[in-house]
């Protein structure tokens, strides 16, 4: 899922500027699960903003709503009236949610309340780790199900560099060396031969390097849209 964390409160206040009517929009999907921008966080943030702006002497009228998914038109369309009444929309969705609101409601000023961090999972209560870099060309079949693009600090494709020590990456003791993990798993599975093959230069054009990406599935498109 998409992992995000809330921006510092002062930064959020700064983004709201002079706007008086603030609509905080939470999202019920990924950011709810990672405790960054769900119904609960939207409510707490709205309350905090009301209190803080009152103390500052410039109280804002802050309301909040949470939609099931901020990244799909059908879920955000019902917000139209609330958005119209607000001076500013503070999205607690991921970067996709923020942009979906901005795209659907072009007159509205939409600002982000979260920093969208990565694609990952909770490895334990309160800890999230990156797992996928969405490079568009998955090699997990060659690497024992451990992604070196997302998890190696240098995105290496041919095994651990000289900085791998005691299973840790050279950039920090908290970071496991992805290639040590890959090595251990492939060794345990008697598949080390996979590491002896040289992985050629990666085609990054399927990644962000190829420009903004788009997938079109003709089999799923509606006839009217196809003929447009």
């Amino acid at each position: 899922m998409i992992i995000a964390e809330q921006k510092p409160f002062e930064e959020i206040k700064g983004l709201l500027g002079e706007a008086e009517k603030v609509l905080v929009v939470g999202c019920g999907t990924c950011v709810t699960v990672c405790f960054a921008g769900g119904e609960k966080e939207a409510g707490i943030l709205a309350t905090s903003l009301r209190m803080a702006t009152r103390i500052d002497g410039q109280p804002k009228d802050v309301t909040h709503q949470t939609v099931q998914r901020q990244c799909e038109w059908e879920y955000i369309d019902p917000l139209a009236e609330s958005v119209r009444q607000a001076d500013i929309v503070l999205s607690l969705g991921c970067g996709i949610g923020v942009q979906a609101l901005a795209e659907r409601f072009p007159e509205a000023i939409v600002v982000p309340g979260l920093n969208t961090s990565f694609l990952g999972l909770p490895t334990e209560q309160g800890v999230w780790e990156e797992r996928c870099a969405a490079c568009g060309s998955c090699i997990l079949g060659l690497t024992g199900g451990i992604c070196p693009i997302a998890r190696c600090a240098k995105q290496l494709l041919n095994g651990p560099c000289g900085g791998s020590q005691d299973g840790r990456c050279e950039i920090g003791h908290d970071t496991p060396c992805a290639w040590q993990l890959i090595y251990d798993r492939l060794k345990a599975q008697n598949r080390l031969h996979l590491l002896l093959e040289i992985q050629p230069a990666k085609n990054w054009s399927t990644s962000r390097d190829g420009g903004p990406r788009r997938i079109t599935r003709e089999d799923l498109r509606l006839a009217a849209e196809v003929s447009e």
Partner: protein
Amino acid sequence: METSTNQDPSSESGRDGFRSGSRLERVLREGNFAVTAELGPPQNADPEVIRKKAKVLRGVVDAVNITDNQTAIVRMSSIGAAVLALQEGLEPIAQMTCRDRNRLAMQSDMLGAYALGLRNLLCLTGDHQSFGNHPMAKNVHDLDSMQLIQMAVGLRDEHKFQCGDEIKGQEPRFFVGAAANPFGDPFEWRPLRLAKKVKAGANFIQTQLIYNTARFAEFMELVRKQGTHKEVYLLAGIGPLKSPGMAKYMRDEVPGLDVPNEFVDRMTAAAEGIDKEDKKGRNAAWRAEGIKIAIELVQQVRQIEGVSGVHLMAIEWEEAVRPIVEGAGLLPRPEPAPVPAAA
């Protein structure tokens, strides 16, 4: 359709099996025990710094590595500094890391480096930018070091750019090197990674600093079992310690280094009996011991089958190179025969 390429006959691929015909390649091919050193470019644009360091190393080593923004700190470019060193009569080994450039920039730099007279290229992954003075930088790693080796070799032997397009005209011909860290983890992977670099096309290898020669010998035994030592020239990395503090730091803090306590103790003992206020005296004693240890290490690794030379990394202490080479009995340096003229 074009009927022929306009390839310069003098650049015929692999004449007499020479990759680039660099001095380093010729020294190694003649079976000499090679000596290379390291020259770190300055964090400024002053050519005199390079010229001064080059003078200290001239005639003492066969070739000199010119580092590429080492430890991710901005310095004069490797290629720029290498050309200055070349003008001073040193043979440079330009280092190239994957951290700062993509495949376009790397190939373009290889064309420029060759055009300017450089003939050796060391292909590296590069230290992570978080170690350096621009930790907020974006890193590139379009290629990894394995793929960089493949690219440099492909330009040379297949006359092709990485994309597959043919190079029309002179191709850049480098004696291609790579690094190996015998002390990185996992230990049993290290000889395999070395073999992989050789398979990618590396002609010579320079290792990370070796202090634990017993462990290095184990590594070399695995390398010999693979037969890799017969396919590549391997230069063992040796560096003089400057002080007990440096020895401790390298022992405790630098990932991928293995410094036995013995050397920390010897460095500490070196200044015993010298007044603590006599900083000059203590420094001199430490440095003398550091050079002595380095000479011993050179002599030890020289005995190991499959070691073709040493790579001396006297970081910001180029003056230490001559006494080490001299002390190890490796002076004067050989004058290898030139590449035979084209028929």
